[in-house]
């Protein structure tokens, strides 16, 4: 696979994560997202963790693979519809563990 063909999933698989499977640090209310016109999370999340179902239009979010940049927190509160109801850093030593940085 040439470098340019790497998907976000391919890129994220190079990272080391210590994932807190049970406690998502970011909580999204999909009902709010349905009424969101801009849906800035879809273009802005560097890990593309916000995905829109093409048929139902519902925005799905998965915290696994989060790079903790906090972009979604900003864009949602400023341009979105307040769909992110909780944004915290992962607890204790969970989350992304950069080895290069």
């Amino acid at each position, binding site marked *: 696979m040439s*470098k340019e063909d790497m998907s976000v999933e391919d*890129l994220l698989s190079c990272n080391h994560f210590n994932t807190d499977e049970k406690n998502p640090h970011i909580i999204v209310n999909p009902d709010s997202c349905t009424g969101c016109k801009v849906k*800035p999370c879809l273009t*802005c999340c560097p890990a593309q963790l916000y995905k829109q179902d093409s048929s139902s239009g519902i925005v799905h979010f998965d915290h696994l693979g989060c790079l903790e940049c906090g972009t979604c927190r*900003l*864009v949602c509160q400023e341009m979105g519809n307040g769909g992110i109801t909780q944004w915290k850093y992962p607890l*204790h030593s969970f989350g*992304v563990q950069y080895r290069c940085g």
Partner: protein
Amino acid sequence: MGTENAADVIIVGGGIAGLAAAYALTKKGKSVVLLERGTSCGSKNMTGGRIYTPALRELLGTAVLREAPLERRVVKEQLSIVHGNSSTTLDYMDESAEKENFESCTILRSVFDKWLAGKAEEMGAMIITGTQADHLIEKDGRITGVYAAGEELLADVVIAADGIHSFIAHQAGLKQDIQCSGVGIGVKEVITLSEDIINNRFSLQKGEGAAHLFLGVTPGINGGGFLYTNTDSISLGMVVNPRELSMQEKTIHELFREFKASRSISPLIAQGKTAEYSAHLVHEMGFTGVPRTICRNGLLIVGDAAGFVINMGTTIRGMDLAVWSGIAAAEAIVAAPSPAEISKQYTKRIHERILPLMKRYKRYPQLLAIPRVFTEYPDAANQIMHAVFAIDGHRVPPKLTKKMWHILQHSVGIKHLISDSWEAIRLL
């Protein structure tokens, strides 16, 4: 911990600002507890790739800095103006760049921060990793400590070094939340390549590094690309404004992918293997993004938490300002005759050392906010280069000045050219 102080100073955040403060404080005999949410200092941190070193030299001294795991000292500066398949590059080689007292070098933060944390520990700092400061403790209008992991930790002074979001400074009422218009989203891929390949591809000698910025690779969006050479890897990335990104269809990853596939980049990363993909927000407001007050009774804010970042387009400074502010915080704490005097001492130092510098470049963000900077001007620059270098069979070409005028008229428009030039002269 009851009413007894855990240390003289509690530092929230083990990035470069917090660690600089911890090192400088312990060196002067103050006791320090530093809280870091990652499993090690640096495990949550990333940078595009280059640090200006005078601040580090002041903090550590030349001998200690020589041991630091820095990547390559930058001797080659490149700026490419890209439009489609064309690009015009300015290439500056600084032959005089000193081997010992080099001014800037490339850096990988997870490696460097971990090392700096070790140095601070050697000085006596107590670094507690895997622990977040949940919130501040306030008593009679004075910050007296933090709550962390269900415990009260008290100190004479708290330093908020918790990065761009700085929930601590926000909670203390020192700053508004950051705005989309005032930040960039940075994404970066670290691509490993052998040291020899890097030296050959970038015409570098051992230990020498290149810093390459790209304008016009984020069509219509305020942003740009970057490439820094590390010892045996390349840091390749892009920064884009989230507001402008949201107004179009492409995702940040799609833009980054196109950048990687472009003729300017693709050959440089061939055969490389991706080691990591990271993301972080970057301050883009410069001076105007710094909160009016950077401290309260018992609390000082440093580094990204205080918005100490300058983006001049060609030079981006954040980490060295973080170190300067960490040193300033430590000096203020040591110099103050009583805890109540610390704020005054810190403010004075920041007003002397950091703010005048930031003020000098105060208007640069406005210049970069001219929308044509990211598409129309790169287009014009490359068309002009084409006019300079290309021939047209046996046909007699128009005069170059006439041709240039024609290009500018069509790609930028005379009205814009005049107003933008006026704006540039006024701002710079």
